[in-house]
């Protein structure tokens, strides 16, 4: 069984982003970039399925700038077997990425696609669901456990009030939640090995996909700063303030 794992290059989660003064977007120049954390969990899950003998091959895919090759090399160092970059300078929105991935799925014919549930830059939480819809595949989003047996995926999902277990026939799509697994670190020997693993580059035109953005970003602004920093000396003062000043408790 082949597993396809889309990975996105995003601003590292430790970086505090700054809005550009002209309001055109967020400053990403000279900022540390990393693999989207939910995609790391997706790679880890796929690699574990391979280690268990359930998957035979793990293919990582990224869409975007040439620099996404670094992200794919990370995926290879974490255990993916090969990588595909759909290279473009166009700003990619989730629908466009889902269409590119549908084309890649068409070429690769995986039985399972594992996506991160959301990217920490645009926070859209859409691509996996869109890809599943375009492929007319079942989906299990926000997964905290995945079991594959006899051509069926049984997935425990994090839902609003607790957990839900879904059974779906393969091929199918899963998106990862935080507690699915704890991703490993890439070891130095594996980073070296990753450099020799195959990485193919293709393009939206080759895949026959129109990636023109559907949403125009009119402006990006900084949220109003919260005026915090107030301190109280003890519990008595806190309760007095909550009652008298804030009036939020009786």
């Amino acid at each position: 069984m082949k597993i396809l794992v889309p990975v996105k290059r995003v601003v590292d989660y430790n970086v505090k982003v700054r809005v550009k003064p002209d309001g055109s977007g967020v400053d990403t120049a000279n900022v540390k970039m990393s693999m989207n954390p939910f995609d790391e969990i997706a790679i880890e899950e796929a690699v574990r399925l391979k280690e268990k003998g359930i998957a035979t091959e793990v293919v990582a895919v990224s869409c975007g700038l040439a620099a996404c090759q670094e992200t794919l090399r990370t995926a290879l160092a974490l255990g993916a077997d090969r990588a595909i970059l759909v290279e473009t300078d166009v700003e990619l929105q989730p629908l466009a990425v889902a269409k590119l991935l549908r084309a890649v799925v068409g070429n690769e014919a995986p039985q399972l696609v594992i996506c991160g549930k959301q990217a920490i830059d645009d926070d859209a939480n859409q691509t996996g669901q869109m890809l599943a819809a375009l492929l007319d595949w079942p989906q299990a989003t926000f997964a905290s456990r995945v079991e594959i047996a006899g051509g069926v995926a049984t997935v425990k999902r994090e839902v609003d009030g607790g957990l839900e277990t879904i059974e779906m026939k393969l091929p199918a799509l899963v998106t990862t939640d935080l507690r699915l697994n704890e991703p490993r670190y890439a070891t130095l020997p594996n980073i070296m090995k990753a450099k020799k693993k195959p990485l193919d580059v293709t393009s939206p035109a080759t895949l026959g996909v129109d990636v023109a953005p559907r949403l125009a970003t009119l402006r990006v602004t900084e949220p109003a700063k919260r005026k915090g920093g107030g301190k109280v000396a003890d519990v008595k003062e806190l309760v007095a303030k909550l009652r008298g000043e804030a009036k939020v408790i009786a």
Partner: protein
Amino acid sequence: MAILVIAEHDQQSLKAATLHAITAAGKLGGDVHVLVAGHDARGAADAAAKVAGVASVLLAEAPYLAQPTAENMAANALALLPGAYTHVVAAATGYGKNILPRIAARLDVAQISEVIAIDAPDTFVRPIYAGNAFATVQSKDPVKVLTVRTTAFDAAGAGGSAAVTVVPAAPDTGHAKVIAQEIVKSERPELTSARIVISGGRGLGSGENFKMLEALADKLNAAIGASRAAVDAGYVPNDYQVGQTGKIVAPDLYIAIGISGAIQHLAGMKDSKFIVAINKDPDAPIFQVADYGLVGDLFELVPQLTAELG
């Protein structure tokens, strides 16, 4: 042309989140229709009909909709859509986020997530980068599909008298099956709609110590939440998580206990009206957003606070 709201319900009643989505839908300019897709869901449909601002309720019933999948919910919405609706709206809950991208992809339109303000029927404000920036986006698509952040729109009140129209349910896609549900039953208010939220972080040290928060929550009729660190450490289940990747809350009072205040946590609670922080580290970032910061040992201060509230 009208606006279709996808209702979230338990067959008998509407979930609070849908009331917020109905308010957002009312700002888009057009009749608001609510789709209740379920099994024996007349109760939920009648409840939707009584919500102020609702012009029509569409009830689709089938046994397979007792525990609906995203595939089947999307199919039922898509059956109604062609030419009839300018917008599809749902609350940005786990439920809404699971379904709406599927609808958008099938319509070949963009989806707009976690809308916090509606500037025009085609122009929306949404947070990006964990709420560290707000993007104003304009959709060029014929149908706009949006999830709305419940904390940004008031709950719609009562006073409606819409008709309930039964529509045929779409055939079961047969794609996937819900085989088990473990929904945590709680006497406490729901995290996203509670007036007071008490959240614990890694500073609590164990799941056992969360009991201390329960005593305080009982006094205040508060919901209990947690930071991602506390969830990662296994102290509490994931559905407690407040933050960018968990639940977004904006209660009247948010009490953060033993939480340092990572960016991703702040993204989930910084719109609260008043914030109290209790932490032993005076330099913890949580104090920068707190109205009332209390520096000290939470294991002494929380019982004191519980006692003080009598």
